């Protein structure tokens, strides 16, 4: 909204101040995320910019912390980097093992949350759904209830049922935490869904299953994938439940980071953080593309 030509000098000044204020707030939002990227290439074990880094001296930068991510936990990190070294890393690197665990747990909990959540969102967006409001409130509540309460409850429940320390226990818990995100995104896609399309399919002789797979699913797929990505990120970033119910050797990336921050924070954490920031940029871009695609498909104007 441009200022009209008759704006007073005071208004023009205020507009400047307002823009500066917004720029500062946006900087507050984004700077902490970007600051870790250059610092992760620090050649020194410091958390601040060294003079060499500020002078853009190449010797001030190094990949040593990324290297440490691979070698940490290996049997023979200093051996020559041949096939045996890579095999050692693949099998023993602490961070790599944590990443594998995170991905296994993330993928299975996402599949579970997406399948159940999409099914439920389809039911919830039907006008004839009974107790719609109450059911919705229950299904969204894992997002609202403080995580420490969920973790405490699951700790007692899993100790009693023998799920403590198992992959299944963590996967079920993470699926529960991801479900609200799937429901919110899929029901948002189903708002304004043109019911006449399914009726047309039915009148042309398609069975409900055919109608769903050929008509409904392609239209809501962008929403389903966005929801799945949300669920995956939720699991991939979850640490409290893992701390409470997972076995001691079940490390995940957030748990490893948590330990790193609490005990001895080293720039290796910043290297992990940088990798995670890159992943989140990729995920955000994917979700944006999906959102636009969904709007195109449904003929909704953006905004």
């Amino acid at each position: 909204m441009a200022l009209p030509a008759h704006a007073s000098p005071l208004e023009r000044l205020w507009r400047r101040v307002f823009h500066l204020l917004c720029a500062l707030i946006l900087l507050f939002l984004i700077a902490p995320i970007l600051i870790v990227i250059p610092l992760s290439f620090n050649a020194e074990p410091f958390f601040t910019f060294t003079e060499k880094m500020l002078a853009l001296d190449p010797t001030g930068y190094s990949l040593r912390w990324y290297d440490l991510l691979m070698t940490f936990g290996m049997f023979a990190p200093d051996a020559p980097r041949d096939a045996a070294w890579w095999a050692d890393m693949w099998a023993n690197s602490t961070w790599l093992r944590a990443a594998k665990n995170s991905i296994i747990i993330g993928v299975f909990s996402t599949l579970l949350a997406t399948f159940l959540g999409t099914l439920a969102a389809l039911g919830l967006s039907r006008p004839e759904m009974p107790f719609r409001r109450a059911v919705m409130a229950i299904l969204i509540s894992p997002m609202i209830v403080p995580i420490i309460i969920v973790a405490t409850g699951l700790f007692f429940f899993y100790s009693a049922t023998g799920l403590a320390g198992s992959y299944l226990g963590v996967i079920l818990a993470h699926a529960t935490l991801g479900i609200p995100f799937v429901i919110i995104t899929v029901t948002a896609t189903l708002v304004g869904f043109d019911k006449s399309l399914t009726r047309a399919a039915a009148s042309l002789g398609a069975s409900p299953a055919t109608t769903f797979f050929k008509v409904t699913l392609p239209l809501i797929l962008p929403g389903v994938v966005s929801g799945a990505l949300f669920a995956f990120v939720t699991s991939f970033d979850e640490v409290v439940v893992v701390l409470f119910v997972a076995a001691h050797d079940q490390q995940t990336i957030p748990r490893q980071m948590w330990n790193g921050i609490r005990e001895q924070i080293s720039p290796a954490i910043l290297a992990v953080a940088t990798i995670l920031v890159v992943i989140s940029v990729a995920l955000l871009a994917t979700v944006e593309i999906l959102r636009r695609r969904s709007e195109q498909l449904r003929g909704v104007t953006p905004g």
Partner: protein
Amino acid sequence: MAEPQTLTTPDGVPLKRALARAQARARRRAFLLVAPLLLFVIVTFLVPIGQMLHRSVYNDSFAANMPRLTAWFATTEPDTPPDDAAWEALALDLRAAAEARTVGVVGTRVNYDLPGTRSLFTATGRKARSFQAPWREALLAADADWADPMLWSTMRQAARSYSPNFFLAALDLTRDARGAIVAVPQDRQVYVALFQRTFTLAALITVLCVLLGFPVAHLLATLPLRWSNLLMILVLLPFWTSLLVRTTSWIVLLQGQGVINNSLVATGLLADDGRLSLIYNQTGTIIAMTHVLLPFTILPLYSVMRPIPPSYVRAARSLGATSWTAFRRVYLPQTLPGIGAGALLVFILAVGYYITPALVGGASGQLISNLIAFHMTDSLNWSLAAALAAILLGLVLILYWLYDRLVGIDNLKLG
């Protein structure tokens, strides 16, 4: 005139009934779609939390390990001084518990209500094998503290498996020798102050989020879509970035040798020995949590501000309002639903926050969640942890209900 005739389907079923049947079928179908998830959430979420709530009023570690004394308490009136039967029950129970190695569990349970008694149980337990009648003299010879009427009153309380005592403890209350509810000594009062701190900090963070979120949301809502979509990425990226990454970044920025302090020292604004302590205290909690929760205010504010037509403010201006009056009387009231939605959501999330305060809060920036975690993992007073969690959960659910009434859960948006 033809007789009014009921409309029927081709098979002769009255149309009304056919319609009712079809509607019932549609309702059933919708519910069946939701049922698997509902069942899943009930089993993996509601039942565990329900069990935890049960634990906040139920603790049988005394009754299960001291059966004879528990039976004596059950048959006598409160305030009954211990008679010979009571002393015998106590001595035999202590001996049995010492043999079963559960005397420490009993001592810990009594210790929750009467600090300093755990060692009395474990020390006497070690001597219990050699106890002979007369039991009273044997026990008092082991430790004179067994005659303390306060101890007997506390044991009577602990013998009841169901009791509200853990909720009393969570509210800084206890019972005196006669079983009446009194406040705990001043130096042991922690929980009420911690609830107050949690709410004060959550309110402060909410206010900061609204103050910082409002201008940005306004800017995004008034820019052309092309530009606002671009700037929106700056708001959404923190949303998608791992919480631990954001917390790590704040440690890097705020710590004593961190980027902010070093820059201030390097530019001469700060003496080297006068570095600001910005982290591992309340300041750290407030800054990091405001950063984490800010997108949750910007997004609802934006979705409320975007459809506000700019012509309203223009009309106010053309009718002679100053820009401040036009903002205050015309624009601001229209954004209130967004402010309410954002503020309520941030407050709900802030009250139960755990990770950020645990990592950057130090001692003064801890919230109620951190104390629940402490009782779960360190002091192992699980019933007290459950009672604190129940109080927190109750408060959060009231706020959630309010959010549903005022905003509606359907309007929750994620980008």
